């Protein structure tokens, strides 16, 4: 069964460093998303991406964040200068339409 894959599963970084989280969505899906879950809190929407541009973003998704689909298969989330509060589980998701999302296993980011 097709699935969304994410790398790395866990990344530890120093505050101020750049981080890139990678995702390979399901191949025939057209919509891509990033969600975030701070430990013990609810899952929060960050950004949606369609037709090579951002469709919608939340207030969390500030200038420190960017997304890219560099090669037609990968979908990346970049955090330019990480802060302690960026520590969270980051989930990538994809969908054929904007309803049923398929999630990856998540990338845990720890900022020290």
């Amino acid at each position, binding site marked *: 069964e097709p699935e969304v894959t994410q790398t790395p599963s866990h990344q530890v970084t120093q505050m101020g460093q750049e981080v890139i989280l990678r995702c390979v969505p399901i191949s025939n899906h057209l919509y891509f998303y990033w*969600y975030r879950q701070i430990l013990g809190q609810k*899952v*929060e929407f960050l950004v949606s991406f369609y037709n090579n541009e951002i469709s919608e973003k939340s207030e969390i998704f500030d200038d420190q964040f960017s997304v890219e689909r560099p090669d037609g298969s990968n979908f990346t989330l970049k955090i330019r200068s990480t802060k302690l509060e960026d520590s969270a589980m980051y989930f990538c998701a994809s969908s054929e339409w904007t309803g*049923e999302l398929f999630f990856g296993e998540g990338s845990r980011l720890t900022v020290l």
Partner: protein
Amino acid sequence: AQTVTQSQPEMSVQEAETVTLSCTYDTSESNYYLFWYKQPPSRQMILVIRQEAYKQQNATENRFSVNFQKAAKSFSLKISDSQLGDTAMYFCAFIGAGGTSYGKLTFGQGTILTVHP
């Protein structure tokens, strides 16, 4: 803005018994979708069941069924014949179907379900 509320932080059930997880939501949209996602300790979020708001019939998926009360804005999940593998965090989620939601799911806080042998 939509809100989704799960008022039960934790629930437990004996294997083979039935458990119901509660979810309420608030929206001004007339058409939308509701979901229950399961997040086991392995972390991946798995879709359990989906309900379209325009459908009056409650969705069922094997041992999982929902009680969708549109007027009350309630969407509970019933798990019958609970199994140890059902142990997980369960999230209720909402998405508008107005064509502008762009996959922006609104999640509840989650309910940790533990199934005891």
